[in-house]
């Protein structure tokens, strides 16, 4: 396995370091690997405050980790020279949640596409540039004649989001980080955009990191999933295991809360895993052990003592919960490696 993009035991703490009061541990020792030899879609799932967007920003090199490192082709982002960094910025692209915010409303959308071509000197002539832009629009499922020459407000939300996909494609990236790319898009277009993301992997061999709060779409398009809770990986593995048969009490709570579009699969009156109390930030700071312990119905004395490590409950799934302490312990890095390989 060749590691293309990797988070190595990454932690990000915001706020002043001296007093624990103002500190927020946004990402807490997370490891993740994108395999260069095997394109895949990896989901990072969690609710607000899970640290998923901070992890994305770390992976993009927009912010620096407090400890641990982000590696691109084995080299730490912080030790890269200018050339390597330009290369990294071209090969790792991002697509964000609200495509409208990414546009300058007074410029035609063409500008969004010509700027990267110019900046990265992708082509030699204007004609070639135009060709390349049209090609990438088509790959994103758009008709160039219906897209170019328009202003952002003249396009639908789905079209604007697909232009962002086209923009990412222009640079011929190896990895695309998609942060909630369909959460602002209407249902009828959502499927179309997810389909174009899957095509990128299948036809162009691009790996995707799909960051979302929506486990249903994560199940639809990804092979592996990392479930984050307050910055830590609580469950990681193949989507078939994690989403269809969740083990961690938090993942089970999440999955049982999904409003499935089927009147015959109703939410229970009470969830199987009802949370005891809503976590307040005050009580959280005092927690030494499992971060979910103040909400978990299965909490034991052990959970309050130490942070649970990952236990390998199946070949392709690990759970950070003492309920599974009879299984083999595994490090986040080992687990990331084994998932990237399969």
């Amino acid at each position, binding site marked *: 396995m060749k590691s293309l993009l990797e988070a190595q035991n990454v932690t990000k703490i915001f706020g002043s370091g001296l007093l624990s009061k103002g500190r927020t541990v946004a990402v807490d020792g997370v490891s993740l690997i994108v395999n260069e030899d095997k394109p895949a879609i990896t989901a990072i799932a969690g*609710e*607000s405050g899970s640290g998923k967007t901070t992890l994305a920003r770390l992976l993009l090199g927009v912010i620096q980790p407090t400890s641990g490192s982000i590696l691109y082709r084995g080299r730490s982002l912080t030790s890269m020279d200018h050339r390597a960094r330009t290369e990294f910025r071209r090969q790792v692209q991002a697509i964000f949640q609200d495509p409208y915010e990414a546009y300058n409303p007074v410029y035609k959308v063409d500008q969004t596409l010509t700027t990267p071509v110019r900046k990265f000197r992708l082509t030699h002539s204007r004609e070639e540039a135009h060709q390349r832009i049209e090609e990438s629009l088509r790959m994103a499922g758009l008709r160039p004649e219906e897209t170019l020459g328009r202003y952002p407000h003249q396009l*639908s*939300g789905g*079209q604007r989001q697909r232009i962002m996909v086209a923009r990412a494609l222009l640079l011929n990236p190896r990895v695309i980080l998609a942060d909630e790319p369909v959460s602002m898009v*209407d*249902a*009828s*277009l*959502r*499927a*179309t*955009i*997810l*389909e174009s993301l*899957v095509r990128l992997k299948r036809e162009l061999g691009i790996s995707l990191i799909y960051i979302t*709060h929506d486990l*249903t*779409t994560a*199940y*639809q*398009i990804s092979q592996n999933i990392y479930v984050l809770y307050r910055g830590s990986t609580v469950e990681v593995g193949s989507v078939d295991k994690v*989403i*269809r048969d969740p083990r961690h009490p938090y993942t089970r*709570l*999440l999955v*049982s*809360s*999904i*409003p*499935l*579009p*089927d*009147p*015959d*699969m*109703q*939410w229970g*009156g009470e*969830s199987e895993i009802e*949370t005891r109390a*809503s976590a307040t930030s005050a009580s959280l700071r005092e927690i030494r052990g499992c971060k979910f312990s103040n909400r978990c119905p299965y909490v034991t004395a052990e959970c309050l003592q130490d942070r649970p490590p990952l236990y390998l409950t199946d070949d392709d799934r690990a759970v950070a919960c003492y309920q599974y302490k009879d299984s083999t312990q595994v490090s986040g890095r080992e687990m990331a490696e084994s998932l990237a390989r399969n």
Partner: protein
Amino acid sequence: MASDRAQARSAYVLDVRDLLISYHTAAGPLRAVNGVSFFLRPGERLGLVGESGSGKTTTALGLMRLLQEPAVIEGGEVLLDGVDLLRLSEEEMRLRRFADISLIPQGAMNSLNPMMKVGEQLRDTIRAHQKRRESRVIIDTRIREVLQSVELHASVMDSYPHELSGGMKQRVCIAMAILLNPKVIIADEPTSALDVVVQRQVMLTLRRVQEALGASVILVGHDMGLMAQFVDRVGVMYGGKLVEVGPVRGIFKDPLHPYTQLLIKSLPNLQTKEDFHGIPGLTPSLLAPPSGCMFHPRCPQAVQRCSIDVPILAEVRPDRWSSCHLYDGRQP
């Protein structure tokens, strides 16, 4: 037969007929709600679902007469227990809001006044609807009761909105909506800003208090999953019109209108993977709407007539309403 119909209609708590709402924009009038008719039975939960621009929120605000310029209600009736809300004076309508028909607005948690304690905002709501002033003790007893029913501690009365979590603020908005025992509660995307776990808890609370109150609910939104979990009947909107109304199971298991069929097919589930069925084409421009059926340019089953004649919402099977030429001549 006709008298049966009339009797059935009088049993509806809310009866909306031919509602027409336009936005008068610089580019010309835009018909956001184009002849929408539906009814609401007592105690029933009805979903109004549609994509952005389908007219669902405009309909909801229209029922409450809370639309602002450039939106204008140009026609129709909104009968609440037989009284047409559209004919009431502004003051009469003000007294009906909260008391008879209340709204949990979109992004409701941001609709709370940030400078005012929660208790004071709830007291104001009660006072604004009282003919004679009740003592604060009586008012506060009622508020405590309602807060308890939405699973909030009475101490939130002394909190400012920013001191509460999103889910708690949303519960305050539900409390406000039920404070005066309305007959109809309109909830416009009440949980769109919340995480799934909290969303589920808030929706279950809303269902519980609504059932206890015997009120009817109109849930407005785009999330078909939420509709499947929460409502008894669904109305599907497209391009300012209702294209289908029917019991939730029928809508999901046996949709009649081609748009509903494609919409249901496009939904992701936890059974199949990489199985995508987007709806090709774009939502119609309301400034230059297509002739005939609004959906015909995207409809795989369209015939020539669909681009000429506007289909009318009709009861094509018992309790199943659809506006599509496929079902013409099949009235029961």
